[in-house]
């Protein structure tokens, strides 16, 4: 089959600048939509499945509370008993990687009379920084017990619906009836901790009236295996504990949000289909104006498949350029945008798989958008095509 040279398709792109612009905008919008939806789904998934935690952590929580740490209540002594009873827990300098924690959602205010906002708080000791190495203090210092001090995550402001500078070092938040000073800021990218407020464990116990109880114990396996922790939990029935790996816990939370992710993808697909139909419309108009040219090409001996291939090359090249522009905009603008949800907040993540999806969406617009109009234009017999206006 005699093919039309690629330069022919490339030169045709510049024949009508308005049509080229329409094709670029159309495909870039569809690609941008795919990037936004993909970034949302990817960001939520990464945050909830804790992909960035390097430690093999196991959570000991109250029986019957496996689906929500906030509902769990165990004796505070479980932490020291677990540290003493489970051999092989990771340790450094004689300090075991065992972190007793309280997970609670509490209302906070900017000031005593201000509007209430729901925050996710975690009561911790210094062991939390051993167990969660993905947490990095970027400003200030950890809060001291008994001093009404707190430390906030990078996305805590987003979770509260406040400007980031409102949670700067030295500012205060009002919770449990008094003001607490922000003395530190931390980041924990792609984890739920990034949107939390950390409080000294004993202070949060007092503030929430939890006499001698905590939510859970998070420990890091060294030579110990998950089976050792499970043996401890099932042996010490008096402590009423259940063991679950941290990854499995957050994977179950991620499964809970799966319908939302499916809905986002379905919505993006529907809107993308609308964009595709708009692209089809543009192509129909573009090719209809070139019926005589197409008839002339057939008269010169080029077969219909060869002409369709050239038209598709033209459309796909324009769509690919639009998709690349969209990917650049997506990386510069969309990546890192914080989104609030019930468990805290997460950032849109435009990484390699998402960019691939965006490029793919743009290319599909170019490919699928060209074939039906091209085939339609070739239906006319050559003499009628040559006489068309």
């Amino acid at each position, binding site marked *: 089959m005699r093919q039309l040279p690629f330069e022919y398709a490339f030169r045709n792109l510049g024949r009508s600048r308005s049509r080229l612009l329409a094709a670029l905008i159309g495909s870039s919008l569809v690609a941008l939509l795919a990037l936004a939806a993909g970034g949302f789904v990817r960001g939520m998934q990464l945050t909830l499945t804790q992909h960035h935690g390097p430690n093999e952590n196991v959570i000991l929580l109250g*029986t*019957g509370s*496996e689906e929500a740490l906030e509902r769990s209540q165990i004796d505070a002594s479980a932490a020291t008993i677990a540290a003493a009873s489970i051999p092989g827990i990771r340790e450094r300098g004689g300090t075991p990687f065992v972190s007793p924690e309280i997970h609670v959602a509490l209302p906070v205010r900017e000031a005593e009379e201000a509007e209430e906002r729901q925050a996710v708080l975690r009561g911790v000791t210094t062991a939390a920084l051993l167990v969660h190495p993905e947490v990095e203090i970027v400003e200030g210092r950890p809060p001291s017990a008994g001093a009404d001090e707190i430390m906030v995550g990078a996305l805590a402001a987003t979770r509260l619906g406040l400007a980031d500078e409102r949670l700067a070092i030295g500012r205060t938040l009002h919770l449990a009836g008094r003001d607490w000073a922000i003395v530190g800021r931390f980041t924990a990218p792609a984890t739920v901790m990034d949107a939390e407020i950390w409080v000294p464990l004993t202070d949060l116990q007092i503030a929430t009236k939890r006499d001698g109880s905590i939510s859970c114990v998070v420990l890091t396996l060294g030579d110990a*295996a998950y*089976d050792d922790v*499970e*043996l401890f939990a*099932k*042996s*010490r*029935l*008096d402590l*009423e504990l*259940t063991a679950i790996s941290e990854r499995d816990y957050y994977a179950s939370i991620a499964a809970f949000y799966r319908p939302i992710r499916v809905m986002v993808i379905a919505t993006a697909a529907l809107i993308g289909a609308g964009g595709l139909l708009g692209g089809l419309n543009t192509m129909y108009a573009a090719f209809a104006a070139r019926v005589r040219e197409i008839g002339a090409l057939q008269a010169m001996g080029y077969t219909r498949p060869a002409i369709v291939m050239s038209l598709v090359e033209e459309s796909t090249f324009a769509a690919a350029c639009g998709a690349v522009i969209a990917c650049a905009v997506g990386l510069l603008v969309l990546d890192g945008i914080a989104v609030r949800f019930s468990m805290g907040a997460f950032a849109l993540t435009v990484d390699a798989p998402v960019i691939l999806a965006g490029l793919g969406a743009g290319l599909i617009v170019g490919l699928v958008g060209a074939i039906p109009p091209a085939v339609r234009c070739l239906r006319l017999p050559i003499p009628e095509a040559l006489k068309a206006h």
Partner: protein
Amino acid sequence: MKHARIAALALAPLAVLAGCGKDAAETGPRENPADSAASGRPAFLLAEMPEGAVPVADAKKTAREGEQIVVRGRIGGRSDPMSAGQGLFVMMDPSVPSCADDPEDECKTPWDYCCETPETIMANAATVQVTGPDGKPLKTNLSAAGLSELDEVIVVGTVGARPSPEVLVVDATGIHRVGG
């Protein structure tokens, strides 16, 4: 000859990997295949019903660390009473009704005894571990051995450490499944 050498070099790593590949979860002592080969039943499963079994609640009141015991119970007391990767399970006193005993209850995990109070569960639950020579639970799947939630069992073994009256751990040498 040259092709044979190249083929041998290419296949050698596969042979090494096949010999070395071992799941970390399988590094503990496993059930001895020779013990079960003859009858097809794991060695710790007893065909004959042991005599002199006491229910869990009574055992918790009197059992002392180190003494031999035969205790009767029903697998349950947790949403996941049986460990997937080791010989370890929790059992309840047979006199305590599970959610499955209530025909109107549609609980999907009736073996968790959620119909009972936590105090009742604690007073009537015990832990059973089928131990290996190192004193740790055997790496075995009790479900594959024929045990399941709410099965009534009689356990023969030794009472383990009792840090509090609510804790009763039996290091089992034999388990008989009642009725099967």
